[in-house]
């Protein structure tokens, strides 16, 4: 009975959404979006691109034009990592022992892979304003490399204190750079370093610096979450 009720409500909602979203004049047809009437025409104007200096337009929007929303998103991620740490941690901790014991070759070979993955993540973070990528996927790749070390070794626990210090320092530096924009120029998070030429590595003002800080912060947060999931209280 409850299944039928849920099914009817979902079908009604689906029909309503499809009729409302694909039959109006305000919504463009799929594949024929023209950006002349939208605000993105200002973002893609060639004079504005040279003034900001970043080649990747999505990076310029996320860090430059809408940098305050990125500050809010970093705050939400910090609160979720804080909640996981509250729920799952205790004063004395040890690794959960699973039923399988990894091989010796696995333990040694994964350390080489860890170095290669870390170099890839630094490349993706540093070239955020030239190629697709940026701080968010780079930080997630750092967390994936730490996850590899956790899976390959049975007794591995990373240095949690240094991760927490790194996360706090990176977050504070983000806000301090924003306040420096308030001091040196007109408003919060304004680009106060020179823009350079589009397409070079040293260009686009403070955008690469902020992306490096965001990448380190996201990576250390998710690595802390993984560590909290794989440890339990010492019941000795």
């Amino acid at each position: 009975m409850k299944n039928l009720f849920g099914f009817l409500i979902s079908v009604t909602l689906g029909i309503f959404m499809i009729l409302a979203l694909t039959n109006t004049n305000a919504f463009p047809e799929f594949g024929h979006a023209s950006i002349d009437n939208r605000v993105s025409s200002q973002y893609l104007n060639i004079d504005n691109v040279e003034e900001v200096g970043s080649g990747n337009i999505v990076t310029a929007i996320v860090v430059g034009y809408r940098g305050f929303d990125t500050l809010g998103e970093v705050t939400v991620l910090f609160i979720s990592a804080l909640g996981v740490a509250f729920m799952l941690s205790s004063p004395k901790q040890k690794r959960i022992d699973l039923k399988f014991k990894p091989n010796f070759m696995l333990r040694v070979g994964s350390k080489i892979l860890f170095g290669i993955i870390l170099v890839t993540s630094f490349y993706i973070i540093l070239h955020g304003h030239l190629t697709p990528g940026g701080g968010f996927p780079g930080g997630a790749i750092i967390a994936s490399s730490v996850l590899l070390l956790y899976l390959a070794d049975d007794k591995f626990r990373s240095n949690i204190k240094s991760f927490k210090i790194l996360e706090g320092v990176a977050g504070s530096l983000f806000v301090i750079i924003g306040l420096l924009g308030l001091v040196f120029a007109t408003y919060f998070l304004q680009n106060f370093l020179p823009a350079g030429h589009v397409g070079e590595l040293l260009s686009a003002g403070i955008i690469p610096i902020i992306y490096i800080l965001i990448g380190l912060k996201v990576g250390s947060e998710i690595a802390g979450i993984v560590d909290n999931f794989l440890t339990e209280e010492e019941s000795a």
Partner: protein
Amino acid sequence: MIQYAAIILFVFGIYGLFTNKNVIKMIISLNIMEIGLNIFIISIGFNYDGIAPIISSTNDLGYIFVDPLPQALVLTAIVIGVGTTALGLAIAKNIYKTYNTFELDEMEESA
């Protein structure tokens, strides 16, 4: 086509939240809703003749670009989805430690 599929995916997620009684399956339905929504938001700014919004040098002009603003919004939404899922799974782990089950029916009986 992809727009209709994304909206129906969102409706599948809501149906999954209605009918499932397992805590882990409810979190999976939440994730299905988020995937459907992200696909729909990016399909708003798509153009058949457009290319990806990356400018290599200021010499080439005259290209049509796809809309970069929905992509910036979805980038933030994906990372927030990870945070929400992690917090939900931590709460589910504590639920198992207290009640020894994941089903909602057995939990209400033993309370």
